[in-house]
């Protein structure tokens, strides 16, 4: 199966484009909520990136434990950018919620929205503030990586710890990364 998909990291550079994409995504999801789509299973891949039938990024873990590059990359980026608040391996901490659950429970586009624009829960009982990472290339260029990794953790498809084996990094992923970081 081949579909054309625009990796979100490629669109990040232009904030306007991102806003449009988010809006469109949310609308699309609202219409298809009823038949509860499979948000986990990889239906097709594109140059080393895996997607569900609904074009949502997802992981692909082979029987011998080999993970796709994006999931491996997400492990690294998560532990650089997210770990200091959300704890190791998406498990949550005394400070911030377990993102391995958020990645499964939340719609992909909502997840992207919270990471991009932040979220505040500040009241008498809670002082919980997620910052906006929309301008942070170290997060935004790897958002699909982090999301994919967390989804693999949240479904227990991937155990805690560093993934032992990984697929090679594809040229397309490398090019997209360079373009995103350079822009």
């Amino acid at each position, binding site marked *: 199966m081949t579909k054309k998909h625009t990796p979100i990291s490629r669109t990040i550079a232009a904030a306007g484009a991102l806003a449009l994409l988010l809006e469109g995504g949310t609308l699309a999801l609202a219409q298809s909520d009823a038949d509860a789509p499979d948000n986990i299973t990889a239906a097709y891949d594109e140059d080393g990136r895996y997607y569900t039938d609904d074009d949502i990024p997802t992981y692909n873990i082979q029987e011998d434990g080999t993970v796709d590059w994006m999931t491996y990359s997400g492990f690294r980026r998560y532990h650089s950018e997210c770990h200091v608040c959300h704890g190791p391996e998406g498990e949550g901490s005394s400070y911030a919620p*377990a993102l391995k659950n958020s990645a499964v429970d939340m719609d992909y586009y909502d997840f992207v929205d919270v990471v991009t624009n932040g979220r505040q829960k500040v009241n008498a009982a809670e002082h919980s503030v997620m910052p906006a990472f929309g301008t942070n290339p170290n997060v935004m260029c790897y958002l699909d990586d982090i999301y994919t990794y967390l989804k693999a953790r949240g479904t227990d498809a991937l155990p805690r710890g560093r993934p032992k084996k990984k697929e090679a990094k594809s040229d397309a992923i490398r090019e997209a990364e360079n373009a995103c970081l350079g822009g």
Partner: protein
Amino acid sequence: MKRLHSIKGILILSTALSLGGMSAASANSELQGMMDDANQWVIQTGDYTNQRYSELSDINKDNVGDLQVAWTFSTGVLRGHEGSPLVIGDVMYVHTPFPNVVYALDLNNDGKVIWKYEPKQDADVIPVMCCDTVNRGVAYGDGKIFLHQADTTLVALDAKTGEVAWSVKNGDPAIGETNTATVMPVKDKVIVGISGGEFGVRGSVTAYNMSDGSLAWRGYSMGPDSDTLMDPEKTTHLGKPVGKDSGTATWEGDQWKIGGGTTWGWYSYDPDLNLVYYGTGNPSTWNPSQRPGDNRWSMTIFARDVDTGMAKWVYQMTPHDEWDFDGINEMILTDQEIDGQMRKLLTHFDRNGLAYTMDRESGELLVAEKYDPAVNWTTGVDMDPNSETYGRPAVVAEYSTEQNGEDTNSTGICPAALGTKDQQPAAYSPKTETFYVPTNHVCMDYEPFRVAYKAGQPYVGATLSMYPAPDSHGGMGNFVAWDNVKGEIKWTVPEQFSVWSGALATAGDIVFYGTLEGYLKAIDANTGDELYKFKTPSGIIGNVMTYTHGGKQYVAILSGVGGWAGIGLAAGLTNPNDGLGAVGGYAALSDYTSLGGSLTVFALPN
């Protein structure tokens, strides 16, 4: 005992001598007198030496087993509670993490709230605070309570009424500058640090005038001499002049401008030498390949003149950090005998796992030894003054994240980035001439990679996995008794979790500390034998203090789990080097305790 008295005697004498003509000298001598009074606890560190030693001995090793809870107080805030309350006369001052509430409690009236101060702060500061919204407490001086808020506002409150006398903004959270530390009132000034090493902040120490909050001086950790307040000829590093612009000379291009070296630890002060001591944090980023050079003066012990801010001497412990071994831990000042000679010493337990004993007048390095045998990233420090690498740690290639390179996972490095000890302050008893050190016993894998700097955004650049030190007792902490002259461990109490609580030693021959499960423990100062424990409502990352009221000795501790410990250990650690079956096998803090700030005060039964 004798030596302690002699130290206090010198302090009082020097204070008296410096009275002439100085407008704030009276405030200073008042504060010094209050520190010398063991019935009170007036700054977070107890006194300027940072010994965390109390001469109170009504509670002692023979009766501490009878200790009971006298009263408790809920702070109403859930996040990690570091620091401790203060007691000035009949009033206790209790602080909280963000939103940084301060309570004045009437000890004559069952802890009734005399006043409460709650600053208005933009909640946007919360996520910029790496690793929880902790605050290490208020300080007293000149009739005022000094609160350094999360958003770097330093506010002076009237100790009697809680009214704001003045306030000043020390930094800008929009570029990642925040505060977690306490402040140190000295003479007519308040000494203030800054946080944000994970956001590419350039660290600095600032002195504000106590009377009105106006700026007296600011010394940066890196930059040209005019910023670092260094004299190329007179400021020394291990006895040699630092040379011109030493704070930019070991950086590539303008990288020093986002160089880190923040100053969020504890401060100490020697009135005889008129020097303030503190350490600077890690260079930004955690990816060493992105910032070639020694990155001076990150990871450095500083001795600065209190009046002018000029640096007298520096010592860089970890040149070109490759592991996030922040050098901010406290400097403990003692007067002890070495080779038959009384020396003015400074002892420092660094994150890098080495304990340093230095001459605090000259900056001479006397001892540098591992205070956890697990430490493996270095074979030790070159102690030969004639060597080209004098004072430098010899890095083991296998554990060098720089030598292994970007995108390579270096495994089995001890200690982890938490350090063998983080900010949790050690105590020193002049009776036993022993240091009591709360430690972490955790190792890590560390993989650095390239990151881009963006103001106000995290600037980390490494992936870490942490796990208990292998081939040891399986726990993540130790409570260590240390001889700073010999550079040797006397004894060790193993702990299941990192010991993230500041210790207190007393003339009652006991040492107190808290644990992450929530226990307040008292142990024998000579043997380490456990004499008492009580499980408080939440995990302890605060520091133990003691005071008397109505002629009775009390011991107080803040509980409320959080901080780096709560983030790293809440879900338990895993060892990625183990087989899959062992993953998740280590203790999870969340199985033992939960969030919630409260104060527990202990006393002997009537």
